[in-house]
């Protein structure tokens, strides 16, 4: 897919690399996946903190 984005009216054409629609779409999906993964990590740490209570700092080894 080599389609390039058209510059918006009244704006200078973008300099440098311009992503194709396909590249933009896949980047957005990857970004959402990373955000979800980080969200899961935060929830996981929060849930375990609730479960362990003060003992969360008491780890063997």
């Amino acid at each position, binding site marked *: 897919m080599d389609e390039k984005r058209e510059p918006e009216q009244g704006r200078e054409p973008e300099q440098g690399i311009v992503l194709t629609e396909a590249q933009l779409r896949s980047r957005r*999906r990857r970004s959402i996946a990373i955000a979800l993964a980080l969200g899961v990590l935060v929830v*996981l740490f929060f849930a375990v903190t609730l479960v362990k209570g003060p003992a969360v700092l008491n780890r063997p080894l």
Partner: protein
Amino acid sequence: MSVVDHTAIELPAVRISEADVGDYIALLKPRVMSLVIFTALVGLVIAPGHFHPVLAFTSLLCIAVGAGASGALNMALEGDIDAVMSRTANRPIPRGRITKAEAMAFGMTLAFFSVMTLGILVNWYAGSLLAFTIFFYVVVYTLLLKRRTAQNIVIGGAAGSLPPVVAWVAATGSISVEPLLLFLIIFFWTPPHFWALALFRSDDYARAGVPMLPVVAGPDATRMQILLYTIVLVAIAAAPWPLGYFDFVYGITSLVLGAGMLVLAINVYVSRERSRSLRATRKLFAFSILYLFALFATLLIETVMRTVMPLVG
């Protein structure tokens, strides 16, 4: 006259990734991961004592992500082999969807987070063992053994056998005989399973230059090895029963399933004609997956029943 001389430098073309989330999921080897999750679940369930469900879920998630990280790193290092084998040519790296460097970065990130999360949230014994498992699969198996020796999957099989042990250590903070038995079952299951695959994919492996047993020792020697390993596997799989760790339900099931494995391994041994041999090895390969799944499912069910029955009365 200009003070500064401008020299045009030819920069390499910038590659912008079009890889989708699905391509990255494929890097995790989801089918291998599902078996890892299941065997680790059994390791968690049979472990003694109470283990909070949130911690159990965290442990399983970390083990699953660690397994996925191993898969991604393995694919990053084996892109050249995958490209020439029909079974793996469709993977994201040979298809050009993801570069080796991207796969390596993805795998390293997942490995780091899985190990650190398991260590911080559950315990560092389990975290360290998960780190060792990833190291063993990526460095010992993929880098050192796979392209050098026909014993690659025998020794490398240790990595695939460790997930239930990691799970047990996560639950108990210690090691015991039961998880080691699970380790041995998967360890001795690996050679018949992969050599059956290698028998009907030997051309693929030969083309890729991977010294799998059928390629370097021939199909007859491989058939014999499959049979010998299957005999040991059946004996070890039944061992938890006479050793008193599991009841007769598991014992009988393991013997029945083991008889199935043995019959199919004998069938592979005696089927030398090409088309019959192909059928026999495919049957053994397919049944071996069912065998391991059913064996571990029996362990799971028996443990759950043992826990639930006294509560019901």
